C-alpha cells in the first residue's frame, strides 16, 4: 500500500570494471531506460544514473518486489548479460537506506576517490534527464534537491573536497601555491607520456594558454602539440625554452637526467629569477634533485607528489567522518518530510468526503427551502462549508502533527476507519446519512 523508495545499483566495489563497461550507458540508452521505467506500471517515479564507476536506478513503487524484478530485467537487457551474472553484483536498498545512499553518492562519499567533484555534475545531469523524460515526481524531485543541498553543505562545511588526491591535480594545486594564478604562464612539456599529457590537460583547464612540447622523436611532439594547440620544439631547444618557461613537466624515458643543475643555474639570471616549477613524473628522474636547491626553483618528482596525495587522503578520511554526520542529519530531515507526505492522501480524502456530504445535503435542503435568491443560496452554501471545515480543522491539524512520529501510521489508520474513508461507497455519502 505504502510507496517505498528503492535504489538498485552497483559500484566499483561490487562489480569489476568488465561488468561496469557492459552497462555503461550512453545518452541514448539512458533515454531508453527512462522511457522503459515510465512504461512500467509498478514504478511511480524513476531516475537512472550511469557513470564509469557506478550504475544506480532509483525509483518509488507500491509493489517493490515486482518493480525490482522488472528493473533487473531492464539491466540485463541493457548489458546483454544473463540475469544470474547480474543478480549477485547489484545491491538493493530501500527506504531511508536508499535515501542515505543517494546523499552519499551526491556528496562523493561513496566514490572510488572520496571527495572527487565530478559525481555531483553527473548526478545533476541524470536528474535533468529524468525531469526531461518526466519520470521524476514529488518524491524524486524532493530527494534530488535535498541531495544537491547535502553535497553543497558537505563541500562548504568539511574539507573533504579541498585537497588534491590525484598526481596531476596535486601538481596544479602546488603550481597555484607558487604562481597564484596560472593565467599567462608558459608550460614546457618534455617527453610526451600519458601522465604528462594528463597533467598538461589539468593545467590547461586551469588557465594555461601557452605551451611547448619537446620530445626525442619530433613527430610525437608535433602530434601532442596539435592536441593542445601548442608549439612543438626539438630536444636541443630545451635550454632556450626553459628561459621562458614557468612550469616544466618532464616524463622522458631517458636513463640520464635531462635537466641538469648547471643548465638551470646558468639560465636563472636570464630568467630574472622568475619562479620555475618542475613536475618530474619520469622514473628514473629527469631533473637532477640538486636543482631544487636553487633559489626560486621548485622540483617535485613523482614520489613527492604521491607524498602530498597521501597526506591529503588522510585528511579526507578525517573529514569524511564529519560528512557522514551531515548525511545522517539530512536523512532524518528527509524522513520527516516523507512522513508528512503520507498524511496528505488521508487529509485529501477527508476533505473530499466532507465536500461530498455538503453538496448532497445542500441539494436536499434547497428542495425543502423552496425558492431562494442566488445570494441566499450562496449564504447557505458558505454556512454549510464553513461548518464542515471547522469540524475537520482539528483532526487535520492533529494528523499533521502526528505524521512526524513513528506512531503516525496508527493515527492515520484510526482516522481512516473513524471517518470511514476506505469504503467503496464513496458516492453514496448522501444516502448513507439518510440511513442514520
Amino acid at each position: 500500500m505504502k510507496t517505498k523508495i528503492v535504489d538498485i545499483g552497483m559500484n566499483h566495489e561490487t562489480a569489476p570494471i568488465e561488468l561496469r563497461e557492459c552497462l555503461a550507458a550512453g545518452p541514448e540508452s539512458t533515454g531508453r531506460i527512462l522511457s522503459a521505467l515510465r512504461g512500467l506500471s509498478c514504478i511511480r517515479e524513476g531516475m537512472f544514473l550511469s557513470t564509469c564507476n557506478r550504475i544506480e536506478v532509483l525509483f518509488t513503487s507500491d509493489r517493490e518486489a515486482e518493480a525490482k524484478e522488472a528493473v533487473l530485467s531492464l539491466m540485463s537487457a541493457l548489458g546483454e548479460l544473463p540475469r544470474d551474472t547480474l543478480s549477485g553484483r547489484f545491491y538493493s536498498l530501500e527506504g531511508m537506506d536508499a535515501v542515505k545512499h543517494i546523499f552519499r553518492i551526491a556528496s562523493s562519499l561513496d566514490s572510488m576517490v572520496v571527495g572527487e567533484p565530478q559525481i555531483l555534475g553527473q548526478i545533476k545531469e541524470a536528474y535533468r534527464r529524468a525531469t526531461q523524460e518526466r519520470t521524476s515526481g514529488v518524491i524524486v524531485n524532493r530527494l534530488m534537491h535535498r541531495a544537491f543541498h547535502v553535497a553543497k553543505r558537505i563541500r562548504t562545511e568539511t574539507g573533504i573536497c579541498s585537497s588534491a588526491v590525484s598526481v596531476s591535480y596535486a601538481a596544479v594545486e602546488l603550481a597555484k601555491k607558487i604562481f597564484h594564478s596560472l593565467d599567462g604562464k608558459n608550460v614546457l612539456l618534455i617527453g610526451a607520456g600519458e601522465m604528462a599529457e594528463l597533467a598538461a590537460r589539468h593545467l590547461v583547464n586551469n588557465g594555461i594558454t601557452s605551451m611547448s612540447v619537446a620530445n626525442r622523436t619530433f613527430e610525437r611532439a608535433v602530434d601532442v602539440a596539435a592536441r593542445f594547440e601548442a608549439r612543438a620544439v626539438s630536444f636541443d631547444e630545451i635550454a632556450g625554452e626553459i628561459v621562458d618557461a614557468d612550469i616544466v613537466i618532464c616524463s622522458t624515458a631517458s636513463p640520464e637526467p635531462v635537466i641538469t643543475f648547471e643548465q638551470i643555474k646558468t639560465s636563472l639570471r636570464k630568467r630574472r629569477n622568475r619562479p620555475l616549477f618542475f613536475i618530474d613524473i619520469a622514473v628514473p628522474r629527469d631533473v637532477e634533485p640538486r636543482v631544487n636547491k636553487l633559489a626560486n626553483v621548485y622540483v617535485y618528482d613523482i614520489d613527492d607528489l604521491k607524498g602530498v596525495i597521501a597526506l591529503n587522503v588522510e585528511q579526507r578520511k578525517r573529514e569524511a567522518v564529519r560528512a557522514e554526520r551531515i548525511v545522517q542529519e539530512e536523512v532524518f530531515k528527509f524522513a520527516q518530510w516523507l512522513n508528512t507526505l503520507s498524511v496528505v492522501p488521508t487529509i485529501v480524502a477527508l476533505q473530499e468526503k466532507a465536500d461530498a456530504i455538503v453538496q448532497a445535503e445542500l441539494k436536499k435542503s434547497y428542495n425543502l427551502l423552496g425558492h431562494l435568491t442566488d445570494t441566499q443560496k450562496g449564504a447557505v452554501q458558505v454556512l454549510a462549508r464553513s461548518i464542515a471545515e471547522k469540524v475537520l480543522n482539528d483532526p487535520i491539524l492533529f494528523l499533521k502533527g502526528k505524521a512526524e512520529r513513528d506512531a503516525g501510521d496508527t493515527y492515520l489508520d484510526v482516522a481512516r476507519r473513524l471517518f470511514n474513508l476506505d469504503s467503496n461507497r464513496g458516492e453514496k455519502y448522501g444516502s448513507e446519512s439518510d440511513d442514520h
Partner: protein
Amino acid sequence: MRSPWFFLALLFDLLATGGYIVYLIKQEKWVSRASCLILFIGFVFHTVFLCVQYAALGTAPVLDLKSAFSFFSWCVVLVFLVFHLKFRIMVLGSFVAPFAAFLMIISSAMPWAAGPVKPIFKSIWLTVHVTTIFLGNGLFAITFVAAIMYLIQERQIKRKRFGSFYSRLPSLATLDSINHYALICGFPFLTLGMITGSIYAQVALGSYWQWDPKEVWSLVTWLFYAALLHERLTVGWRGRRAAVMSIVCFCILLFTFVGATLWVKGYHDFTSIGTGGA
C-alpha cells in the same frame, strides 16, 4: 597627558589581534571580517587620539619615544588597511595586527611625558618629516611581515613538508608582490622623510647635516633599502633572497628607530628633545 582614546585604541588593537589569531586557527571568514572591522575602529580611536594630541601640543605628537611607538603603530595599521583594500589577503592581518598591538603595548608601558613644548618643535617641517618617515616605516613593516610569511611558505614548498600554515598562507607570488609593492611605496616616503628632516634641521638648527648618530643610521637604512630596491628592479631579485634582505633591512630600521635613540646620544635622542627634557 593621559587620554582615554589611547586606551581605546590599545584595547581594540588587542581585540583585533585576538580575532585574527582565532581566524588563523579556525579559518572562518566572518572572524577575519570582524577582526578587520575591530582593527578599523581601533584605528579611528587612535586617529582621534592623535588629533587631540596634535591640538594640545601644537605639533605632531611624536616628541617622546612613547608617542613615537604609538604613531608607528598607527602608520602600520593605516598601511595595512590600504593594502587590505588592494590585496584582500585576510591572513596578512594575522601577522600585522599582533605587530601593531605589540608597538602599542610598548608605547603604553612607557611613562606619559608632560611639560611645555619648545617652540622649535612647532614647525610644519617636523610634522611633514615625521609623518613621511613613519609612513615609510609602516610600509617597511608590511614588507617585513610579508617576508616572514614568504619564508614560512617557501620553506614548506621547498622541503615538501606541509604544515598547517601551507593552506592558510597565500601563494608565493602574492606574498612576493606584497613585499615588492610595499618596498616600492615605502622607499619614496623614507627618502622624502630624510629630505624634509634635513630641511627642518636647517630651519631649526641651521645645518642640513650634523653627523648625528640617528642621521647616520638613517642613511645606512636608506642605503640598504636602496640596494634591495635596485636589485629587485634591475637584476630581478625576488623570492627568498629579497625576503631575507627585507628582513635584514627592517632590523636595521628598527635599530635606527630604537637603538640609535636609546644607546647613542645625539640630538634626535628623545630625552633631550622630549617635551619635558632640557
